[in-house]
């Protein structure tokens, strides 16, 4: 079926089987290989992208439901003015080892910074990130990066502003 939607602000028009996974559309049809496939069954979060401003596992979104939607991948997020600060926090905390889970973590980080209440505890942030698995770091270093970012209200405000435009 002919499907029109937006990826990272660009209009896309593709002829796709309705059962095709968004993950494959991004990687194979559009060459956006920043989005990674881990488990391919919605458990690891490596393929997390934003769909109309909400984080989803792109391995579980069918092409059928893409018409008219707005998708943001890690490539799109790189262009956001907040990206550098997020990358810096991950680097400062040594949060990246093999790196496969990181694009998904960064997408989730943006969502967590937007959706988690101001007074959230470390436990609540951990829980909000529980849909992303990492087999290298033992989680602490990723969590520390997100906690550092969480301490920056101006950054969170800017993220919320960007996400509101996506919805």
């Amino acid at each position, binding site marked *: 079926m002919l499907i029109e939607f937006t990826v990272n602000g660009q209009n896309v028009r593709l002829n796709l089987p309705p059962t095709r996974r968004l993950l494959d559309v991004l990687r194979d049809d559009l060459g956006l290989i920043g989005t990674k496939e881990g488990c391919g069954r919605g458990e690891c979060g490596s393929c997390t992208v934003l769909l109309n401003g909400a984080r989803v596992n792109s391995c*579980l979104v069918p092409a059928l439901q893409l*018409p008219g939607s707005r998708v943001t991948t890690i490539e799109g997020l790189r262009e956001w003015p907040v990206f550098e600060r997020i990358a810096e926090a991950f680097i400062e905390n040594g949060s990246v080892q093999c790196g496969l889970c990181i694009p998904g973590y960064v997408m989730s980080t943006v969502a967590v910074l937007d959706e988690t209440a101001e007074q959230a505890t470390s436990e609540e942030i951990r829980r909000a990130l529980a849909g992303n698995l990492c087999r290298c770091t033992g989680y602490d270093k990723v969590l520390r990066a997100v906690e550092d970012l969480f301490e920056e209200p101006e950054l969170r405000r800017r993220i919320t502003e960007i996400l509101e435009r996506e919805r």
Partner: protein
Amino acid sequence: MAHRPRSLDELDSLALSTSGDVTYVAGATDLMVKPEHWKSAVNLVDLTSIGELTTMLQADGGGLLIGAAVPLSRLMCDPVVCERYPLLVEACAQIGSVQIQNRATLGGNIANASPAGDSLPVLSVYDAELHLGPRQSGAFTKARITDVMRGPGLTSLGRRYIAFIRLPEVEANGQFRYFRKVGQRYSLAISKLSLAVLGWREGDRLRDIRICAGSVSPVVQRAEKTEALLRGQLLSDELIAKAARRLSEEVSPISDIRSSESYRRHICGAVLADALHTIRTGGLKPP
């Protein structure tokens, strides 16, 4: 073939006119993890393209009418759901992860008919009524979860679709409630047990109580024998122990990759005892 109907009328005519199997798609989070079925699915019908099925309304005659394709995360932050049906919020918070909750739906949780569907025990104690389409003479068919769920992964739906879940109004006076999921971890774990309890006290007595345990029977159903044992009674240590034993006997768990039959029986009773002890000491009151 794939369809994105724009209205209930269009959906009904698709349901009535399409020949062969129909696969209704809402959040797709259960459908797409079975690639062999998913890739061979014919006649996909998207339910998220229909406005009515992705909204929540006050139901006629009280209660809340939830579109079957409303994502769980939207339910979880809805002020009416949070205030009147908090057990549903608790159960949804333990389904998958936020990424899953942003897509998954109650309609899908029911139609997938997993004994471990975490919303099902809660929907059962809230006495949820399902509205099934296509409409006949303009009306949806009304059904209970137990009418629809026939066994693990089996439903009586056929080509019918779930349009709405109606939650009746729940009396707040004297209400207590409890939900507990037992799994390997908080997120992304399929339950070994989930237990929902909703009831009302009158003085020291349990005026009424509804109990439903998930993951411990082929279909999710209320524990009627245990409920009958407790209804109208004063809670004592002895009665609590008896109710815990009754529930352990009443359920029919299996041993599988996640847990054993004997552990499931044991934990069922233990978790119910925990709920009843808390109720006895005046806990689990609505705020």
